[in-house]
């Protein structure tokens, strides 16, 4: 950030107070109305052809892949997947962890960046949260349907029953059930509450008719009175405060599924932080992958600025490096342990039947983000996009390495057998990708993809003291003045 001596109250005579000027989040001094226009425009104007070109195929894929895939699965048996008596968890759980990981950036951006007063988040948090919700939906499909008898999945819920039998609260899998469902619920609330004022905006813009009624209902009759805003802000703050530990806990709990087992290569204490970092890593990559195109399609460059992209790139660099550290630390501990089973587990990852997966993971997750050290790379959207894609793929391979490689080579060599996914496995995974895209496109189509109210709030002129500094002396300015005096 470059400092400037150009101050707000040049006009007023008096001591010259240099003030640090914030870099603008919204470029070209856009007005409130322009912002409203622009964001609502996305869902009021006719959708660009591209929208249809993307939506129709992805919707079809979702229908076939998820709908058809699950039908075959449930009617026939888990056997249609590639899982075996050795690799009991194959692609399904890989995909679950992959999606749930992606589902982390959203709430994280909204919550943690909100708490840390990172105003730049406002332009991206809405979309990111939407992404979270859809990713968690995709994720949920896999654990739910990979159980052998999905029609008995309600055994997982602690419902009083005539059999007087209960769940096993010591099972990480049960923790998972609670964690993921909680995470979904809270994210949904967070997302919706954040959207209420914007829904009101849309309500007030559109002509009488069904649209107006629907938006009206979901806007709950929001009026934007300050007596509402004050409670509203408090609620938002609380939710942020709740979501922050939640988002950290969810992936930790997911990692417990592995970390609390006795399986060599899974039984490691580093898993929770490593999974969380990985999740943020993958999540941000996915945000970029989606926002960069959306930004162009809907011309949101002024709201989603290069600064946003730059920040996200930096976060990817950081988390990517953390993940890399975790990979290496795992290796070190394995060899330091001196336990042959532990060592072998990792040797197999590096050089075993699935060495290519490990190679892919390492190069895509650890090496590729390193390019973000260079500003040039962070500024070139093509590079950013490419690296983001790399990370998406790399993170999938990370889960593949953790789950499949480990299970294919466990304790007793007599039992070793490799695994390969079936067509249905791949079908369903592609299906969820389609579902994710379709849902996201619908979101762009019907809901404000950027938080209107908050974006307005970040405008400089939104500060009630914007134009009269002396009435309410700016604390920083005064200190600066005193400092200047001493200098002179």
């Amino acid at each position, binding site marked *: 950030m470059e400092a400037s001596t150009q101050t707000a109250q040049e006009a007023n005579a008096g001591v010259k107070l240099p003030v640090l000027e914030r870099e603008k989040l919204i470029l070209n001094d856009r007005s409130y109305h322009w912002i409203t226009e622009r964001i609502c425009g996305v869902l009021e104007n006719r959708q660009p052809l591209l929208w249809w070109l993307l939506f129709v195929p992805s919707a079809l894929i979702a229908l076939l892949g998820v709908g058809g895939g699950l039908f075959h699965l449930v009617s026939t048996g888990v056997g249609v997947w590639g899982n075996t008596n050795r690799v009991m968890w194959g692609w399904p759980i890989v995909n679950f962890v992959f999606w749930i990981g992606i589902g982390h950036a959203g709430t994280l951006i909204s919550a943690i960046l909100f708490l840390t007063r990172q105003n730049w988040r406002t332009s991206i948090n809405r979309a990111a949260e939407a992404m979270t919700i859809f990713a968690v939906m995709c994720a949920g499909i896999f654990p739910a349907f990979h159980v*052998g*008898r999905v029609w008995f999945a309600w055994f997982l819920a602690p419902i009083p029953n005539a059999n007087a039998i209960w769940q096993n609260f010591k099972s990480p899998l049960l923790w998972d059930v609670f964690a993921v469902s909680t995470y979904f619920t809270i994210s949904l609330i967070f997302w919706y509450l954040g959207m209420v004022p914007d829904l009101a905006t849309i309500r007030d813009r559109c002509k009488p008719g069904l649209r107006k009624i629907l938006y009206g209902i979901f806007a709950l009759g929001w009026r934007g009175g300050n007596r509402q805003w004050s409670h509203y802000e408090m609620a938002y703050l609380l939710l942020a405060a709740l979501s922050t530990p939640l988002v950290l806990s969810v992936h930790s709990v997911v990692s417990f599924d592995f970390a609390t087992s006795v*399986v060599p290569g899974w039984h490691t204490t580093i898993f929770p932080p490593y999974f969380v970092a990985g999740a943020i890593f993958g999540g941000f990559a996915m945000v970029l992958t989606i926002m960069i195109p959306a930004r162009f399609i809907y011309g949101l460059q002024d709201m989603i600025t290069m600064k946003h992209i730059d920040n996200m790139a930096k976060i990817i660099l950081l988390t990517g490096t953390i993940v890399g550290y975790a990979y290496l630390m795992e290796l070190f501990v394995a060899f330091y342990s001196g336990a042959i*089973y532990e060592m072998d587990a990792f040797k197999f990852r590096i050089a075993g039947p699935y*060495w290519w997966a490990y190679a892919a993971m390492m190069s895509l997750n650890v090496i590729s983000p390193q390019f973000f050290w260079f500003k040039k790379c962070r500024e070139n959207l093509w590079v950013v996009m490419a690296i983001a894609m790399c990370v998406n793929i790399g993170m999938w391979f990370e889960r593949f390495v953790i789950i499949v490689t480990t299970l294919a080579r466990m304790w007793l060599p007599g039992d070793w057998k490799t*695994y390969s996914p079936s067509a249905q496995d791949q079908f369903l995974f592609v299906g969820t990708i389609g579902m994710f895209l379709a849902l996201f496109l619908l979101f762009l189509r019907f809901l404000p993809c950027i938080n209107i109210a908050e974006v307005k709030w970040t405008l400089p002129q939104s500060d009630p003291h914007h134009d009269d500094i002396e009435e309410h002396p700016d604390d920083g300015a005064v200190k600066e003045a005193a400092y200047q005096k001493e200098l002179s």
Partner: protein
Amino acid sequence: MSKRVFHHPDVPADETTVAWRSPGQLDDSPEFREWLEREFPRGAAEMADGEDAETSRRSFLKLMGASSALAGFGMAACRRPESYIVPYTKAPEWVIPGKATYYASSMPRAAGAVPLVVTNFEGRPTKLAPNKLHPDADGTDAFTQASVLDLYSPSRSRKPMAGGKPASRADLDAMIAELAKDPGAKVGFLFGGDVSPTRTRLRGELAAKFSGAKFYQYEALAGDGGRAYGDGAKPVADFSKAERILSFDCDFGSSDPVGKASEFFAKRKPEGNGYKAKPDAESMNRLYMVESAFSLTGGMADHRLRVAPAELLKLAGQIARELGVPEAAGMPAVADDKQLSWIEPLVADLKAHRGKSLIVAGSRQPAAVHHLVLAMNLVLGNLGKGHPFNVVQTGNAGLGGLQELIADIHSGAVETLVMMTPANPVYDAPADLDFPAALAKLKNSIHLGTRTDVTAHAASWHIPAAHYLEGWSDARTAAGTYTVVQPMILPLYPDCVSELELLLALLSDDGKLINGEGAEGAASPAYDAVRKTFAGIGGEGDKAWKSLLRDGYLAGSAYTPIDARPSVDARKDIPEAVKAMEAAGDSLQVVFAADASVYDGRYIDNAWLQEAPDPISKVTWDNAALIAPKTAKNLGIYDEILKLEPVTKALGFIPVEGKYAAVGPDGEGKNRTAPVIELKVNGKTLQFPVIVSFGQAENTIVIPLGYGQGFNEEDDFGRKPQNESHVGLVGVNRGFNAYPLRTTASQLFAGGASVKLVAGKRYPIALTQEHSAMYGRALAREISTIDSHDHKGGFEKQLHDVAKQGPVDSHAPKNISLYKSEDRNGQPLLSDKLHQWGMSIDLTSCMGCNACLVACQAENNIPVVGKQQVAMGREMHWIRMDRYYAQQKDNNFDADNPALIPQPVGCVQCESAPCETVCPVNATVHTPDGLNAMAYNRCIGTRYCANNCPYKARRFNFFDYNKRNPLIKHNLYRGPLGKKDEGGADHLQKNPNVTVRMRGVMEKCTYCVQRLKDAVIRQKQGQKQEALAAGKPSTEMDVTTSTLRIPVDSVKVACQEACPAEAISFGNLLDKEKSSLGRAKKLERNYDLLNYIGTLPRTSYLARVKNPNPKMPDAKFIGKATINIV
């Protein structure tokens, strides 16, 4: 009205003992017929109806008396479907609904009958167990265990056929009658190799009745070695007296019995059976093995020499000469120094144990070898009563062989042939004899068989044979004890005829064929015939007969040894054999071997056997040519097949070797394929898939026989459909037929073979085990009794260090849990003070046969899943028979002769079970008596438990294996549209006390919990009976821990029961040293698998002890499977 009280007499106190069949029933008590009649019409109806067939494990009850057949949903009651209880009208004696009855019987086999106790539920035989009362009881092998499935096999022959076309029973009867009425008929009888006194007796009568009657015997794999001992004579070994054993290619422990093998295994254990004595190397026997390819017995050998089949004779000759056998004088000497250095101390050892040593030869070895063996035993003074080696007369004398038969057919001496052999001559007779042609020449040929195989189609008549559990007969064990074969059930299909019944029909004047039961339910004529025979052997009268039926055998009826001397034709046979040997020279030789799954092809339709992996090669559902790595290299086909240590590039460029390398070129799991070779021998050329087999002699190709009997369009190898009707769904498209390569001269070995790789052709092979090395993990542990002067020390030291073997356990600290395993009253969670179950598996006597695996399958209703699923790694066997090779780098004697060590792994019932804690729904929890229980009906199938199981002992029902027939290609993947297992009766075999699992649930071994529960409950019943018998008021009866605890070693689990080597001890840990388990657990060689994870398994292993001869050149490499690990 005044109240009258009828007191029902209490059941007598001894009622808890099992019920044995009483003859009262057989002598045609009306009740007995009543329930058989009631049973089987319904049974037939049941079988027709595939739907019910799978509905539930209790569906069999629908056939039965006290049953609950689910009728039309919600008919009467809207709240739930109405179901009915259908009691017997007249209660049959001894049949208690819901309680099993146990009868003694036996399975007749060429190698000697297997004495059995058969478990019956409401009249259905469901499970076979060895009859431990029997003096020759030896456990049961996989074939025996699986034979109960043959009874219910869907592909079983049910209707007579004429010229391969279905024929009416009336025509059949007419034909039989006609034959019986023609005493001048030139009829030949072809029997199997089994010994049946009644049949022997009837043979005499037949000879008397039919002037032109001739008798022959044929077993496809018998070989002509028997000649050496004289007509109808055979050797019987007494291992209890043998301290040194030299075996020439004789798998006496498993597929080639020559006597009571359990004696051999008993002497393998340094502590003896039951682990009563202190470990003592002296008490152990020592086994020297000379063979071409690994046999299970060979895997146990202390010293094993691998030689090509032709060389074996030379070796035998050398040894014989050094022992001073005159017949061996003129034989060529062994040139190879290594072999000489191996022979010298061996001979010394044998000489040192005159009269206490034993030399045996495999039944497939040529007569020459048997001559030498007989002579050697004679020289060593091992021969004769009270000595290890005896020759006995089985009474199967005066029987011609197949050659004679064919000669007689061509000469016209035989015009009608009655084939009763279980073999399949059209399919398996040596090619040069051209049996089909001879068959065609016959006026009339009658085939009696359980399968509609090629012979059945070729013969002019085929009669469906009754299963041995369906008809009366008798037999003799290997040692010759008279053993009864009694039916458990009337023939499942009305036209099934037993061998004796057919013979008796031919003997009768009117030639009326009576099978199953006679007019007005008179017992089958076979029953009277057997009684008559027995009267001659065991004495007249009901008493003897009843005790025979009760015990299943006649005490003291074993063969009496005959005085045997090397026969004159030794002088002829040996030189001939030597000539043949020199002819073969060092050319590539082929061994035609019996297959561990289909034997000679007769079990091709037995799904359990097909799915059971070959104990050595681990191939399921197929056969493949086995070849030693070096030979493969020499033949230039090595690179095509599995590399011992495939090389790959990690990260694309770093070359990696050994276990870390990626999958070998032949793939793994469902991608595994084997290259195909073209084998040319005896002027014929056939194609076989080929896989590497370790420890096999160089220049030798082993081909298991018995496959390739019928194909349809779904064949993996693209063979065109043929003989589809000869096999069922199990046997179709299975493997490759090698019989056409055999000639009379080379029935079991053939020299001068040549091999060519068929480029680009590969065949998918389903292995249950892909990796054969332990990779430095001390899993199956082995020690030796000698100090080979490395740091391992002597026997005591090695015993002491067993628990510390391996890189981890050697220095892993003791696991101490943070938690106390207590409930909230501070009581221990494993609270049962009566029983705490445990098991130990003794690797010293376990040879890795599949007996336990199949027994478990029979006991626990484990489904088969078919080749493709096995290839993927979805087999359901609760016991995984791991087989490891330990190759020793520094072995300068014979580095390519690795140690073979098997390790059966089932659920080890960890006290601290990782699987339990991860189950979200409490579907698998621990019972207070230490079982890791599995509640199938609670399981939702997250499969987390299986991931977290270090022993990978859990199996998941990926499909409805019990409902949808896995044997039809892609059928499982059709879900609800998939075909069901129709027409079969195998649901009748299901154990009613074990749930039949549906798709989507996890399953695993639970120590046969149903048996444990039954035993415990019976103990409780006994309690009450005694107390009431004592006449004390129950409030004063003293029930104590000791009275409620079941008697020591009184309950056996299925695998333990079946084990022929008594390698498995199971029992109540609280019995301490009173039980053999308790003693086993106290041994120093007792160790826990993967001890350092701290799972506290209840199943532990006893390290294998090898007893090498210190003077042998390879001595110092013996007994180190765990130490010298590749």
